[in-house]
């Protein structure tokens, strides 16, 4: 009898651990909301011809557009939600949930909405939802860089919304095309709360959220009652794909293996080291899409000697062999950056490459009184092997100027605040102009009001540049804007607060039976266009 009791005790003690495991780990399924058409199609019964499997390195943080600003989440948002407007391949603004818009003045614009658009829970989109979404986005800290310009959105009628901004904001429409400005259903968000909405999102997009498994995957299914319009699809059409599974596979080499074995159809973020293999493989197609990023530059902390001396910065620019660095570190992918803005952004000016000239570099150092060199550091974020490679090469090449560089590889958690505080000498960082508009590419990085956290980690200040960037940001005249940006870029390249190194490409790969694949420079994929051949 005692034996039994003891065994039970042990079992109880151990079993109490299992209490925490809950009822299995899967299926945070979106519960049917009030008045829905279709609550929970079992995703598993979708036929295989219409089931797409995507592998990517990271899981989205949240499915609510106001709670996070990471790219994997944006990818999901772009499928689940819609924005008022979209950008097409040529960076033109085209209608989305708004069919037309009119600027009443530099700070006010009225949008006319598409009628009868259905949400995934059966509700119909009204101006109330739009105003709610925009106001909410405007207040969110997480996406402040994108939607902070919103002052107030006001309902004018059932299908008209007036948007008011604090100051004239020229790139307004580009920002509204970003998934951060996605339109949510007010009733749903208010019913279940922000955080819950992050796990049970309701949107108007062509795909509906089905479920997710923490850290592992999430599933979307086609919204069969979709009646809105997305770029590339005819009105009234539905996606061919009925079910998408996004799987998270952190190791790059293993992602490729999944694609090779056919366990996945689309691969996102192929590592540079994998590209050659994918290109050679018979069943796989490689897509290299120049994106909106000057992904890496060699930045100087211009507040810290000797980097406050332009001659030192120029000397370093002459000392390093940029094409070789790009070729080795990024395996020949992307391209050597040609200026502060990537060539894909409107109004980008291209500059002639800085040719390596060690003799000239040494002259400059001597002029600056530093022919004996100095010690400094270069900060790189952990987890980016390519930047680390570049740092190692730069370190070696700077020896020619007697510059001893210590490489500090830190995780983001340390790197971001430290570079914001100016603890670095040099850094390898970059910037993605997510909106495709030069304001976002230049203002946060080069305007002196953004020193530190705002994005200007080079602590660059040029009063004329500041002026020009404000003109670009607020002027309603496009020609005036572009001229301002042209001059700004020239001044920046003359001042050289950073040396642009690499313009990135988005690297996708698919199996050769995947058709209709269109990747955008933003890193978003319009999966509604995809079909199996």
């Amino acid at each position: 009898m005692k034996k039994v009791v003891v065994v039970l005790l042990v079992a109880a003690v151990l079993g109490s651990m299992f209490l925490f495991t809950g009822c299995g780990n899967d299926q945070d399924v979106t519960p049917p909301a009030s008045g829905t058409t279709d609550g929970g199609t079992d995703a598993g019964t979708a036929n295989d011809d219409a089931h797409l499997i995507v592998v990517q390195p990271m899981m989205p943080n949240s499915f609510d557009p106001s709670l996070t600003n990471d790219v994997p989440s944006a990818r999901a948002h772009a499928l689940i939600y819609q924005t008022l407007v979209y950008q097409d391949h040529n960076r033109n603004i085209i209608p989305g949930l708004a069919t037309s818009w009119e600027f009443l003045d530099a700070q006010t614009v009225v949008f006319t909405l598409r009628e009868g658009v259905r949400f995934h829970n059966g509700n119909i989109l009204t101006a109330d939802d739009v105003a709610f979404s925009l106001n909410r986005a405007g207040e969110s800290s997480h996406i402040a860089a994108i939607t902070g310009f919103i002052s107030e959105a006001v309902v004018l009628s059932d299908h008209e919304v007036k948007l008011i901004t604090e100051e004239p904001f020229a790139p307004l429409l580009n920002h509204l095309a970003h998934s951060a400005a996605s339109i949510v259903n007010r009733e749903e968000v208010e019913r279940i709360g922000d955080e819950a909405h992050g796990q049970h999102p309701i949107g108007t997009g062509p795909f509906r959220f089905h479920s997710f498994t923490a850290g592992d995957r999430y599933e979307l299914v086609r919204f069969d009652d979709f009646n809105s319009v997305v770029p590339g699809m005819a009105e009234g059409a539905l996606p061919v794909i009925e079910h998408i599974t996004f799987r998270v596979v952190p190791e790059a080499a293993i992602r490729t293996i999944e694609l090779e074995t056919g366990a996945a159809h689309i691969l996102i973020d192929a590592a540079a080291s994998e590209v050659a293999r994918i290109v050679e493989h018979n069943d796989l197609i490689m897509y290299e899409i120049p994106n909106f990023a000057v992904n890496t530059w060699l930045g100087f902390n211009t507040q810290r000697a000797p980097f406050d001396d332009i001659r030192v910065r120029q000397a370093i620019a002459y000392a390093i062999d940029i094409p070789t660095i790009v070729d080795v570190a990024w395996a020949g992918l992307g391209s050597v950056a040609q200026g502060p803005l990537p060539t894909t952004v409107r109004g980008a000016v291209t500059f002639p490459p800085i040719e390596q000239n060690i003799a000239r570099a040494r002259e400059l150092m001597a002029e600056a009184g530093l022919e004996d060199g100095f010690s400094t550091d270069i900060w790189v974020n952990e987890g980016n092997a390519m930047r680390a490679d570049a740092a190692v090469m730069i370190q070696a090449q700077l020896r020619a100027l007697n510059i001893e560089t210590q490489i500090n590889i830190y995780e983001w958690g340390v790197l971001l605040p430290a570079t914001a505080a100016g603890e670095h000498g040099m850094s390898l960082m970059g910037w993605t102009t997510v909106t495709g508009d030069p304001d976002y590419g230049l203002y946060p990085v080069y305007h002196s009001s953004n020193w530190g956290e705002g994005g200007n980690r080079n602590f660059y200040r040029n009063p004329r540049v500041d002026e020009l960037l404000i003109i670009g940001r607020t002027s309603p005249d496009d020609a005036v804007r572009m001229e301002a940006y042209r001059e700004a870029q020239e001044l920046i390249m003359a001042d050289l607060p950073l040396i642009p190194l690499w313009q990135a490409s988005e690297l996708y790969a698919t199996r050769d039976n995947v058709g209709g694949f269109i990747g955008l420079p933003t890193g978003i994929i319009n999966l509604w266009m995809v079909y199996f051949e």
Partner: protein
Amino acid sequence: MYKYILKRLLMMIPIIIGVTFIIFSMNYITPGDPALLALGEAAPPEAVEALREEMGLNRPFLVQYAYYMINLLQGDLGLSSVTHRSVFLEISDRFPTTLALAFYGTILSVLIGVPLGIISATKQYSIFDSAATAAGLLAVSIPNFWLGLMLIITFSLNLGWLPPSGLDHPLGWILPIITLGTGSAALVMRITRSSMLEVIRQDYIRTARAKGQKESIIIWKHAFRNALIPVVTAVGLDFGFLLGGAVLTETIYALPGLGRFMVDSIRTRDFMVVQGGVLFLAIAFSLVNLAVDILYAYIDPRIKSQYK
């Protein structure tokens, strides 16, 4: 016996509190601002400040700790600063994977380690013994993340027998369990061997032999059951270690387990998750220890009598 268990459970409490305090302190002094990190490279200062306020990061250390403990006592582990999801859900979603891995890994280690250990002991100083010892030491010496990579290359890539990652397919469990269980198997073998050796030298074994009993019965009926005690302890403790130590295996095989999640959360400064996760693992580990001790006390009659 029940008094002993109660006493142990009570003693767990100050330890667990100590764990929360240490982790909280480490989180506090860890450089890096969770708010800034959440916003990334484009972080308008007002937004950072607003988020900091939201997250309660501006309050003094003890105040933050007090709030945390009060919530904890009500069963509220807080929200993840990255996903805004309940920490409890994030953990309970991933714990079963880690638990299963540790469990199967332990089973593998017992299946391999115990028989090898017994044979080693019965054939002490033989070639088999030396070879097994050497193999065992080699098994704990190979870095298990390296072993994992090598296994993937061989069995997934070159031979195509097994899937390289993920747990979709039942076969996907095989490589991670082998990677995880190898080191433990070696440990179990070691302990079994030395424990058997201890027992075999005892007088009552010699008596049984003198009485003419069959060798195999001696080994099984007498030696093995008594040698079991330290082995059970070691296996139990090892299970506890595996719960927390599967980090590398989970990373390489892309398994959505708790260990890997902890590492990611430390990186993203998701402090609520780190707190909750370590707390969780500490409790689990302590419970396993307690279970092992109870079992140990039960099996070993000498100790059992102490607690009558």
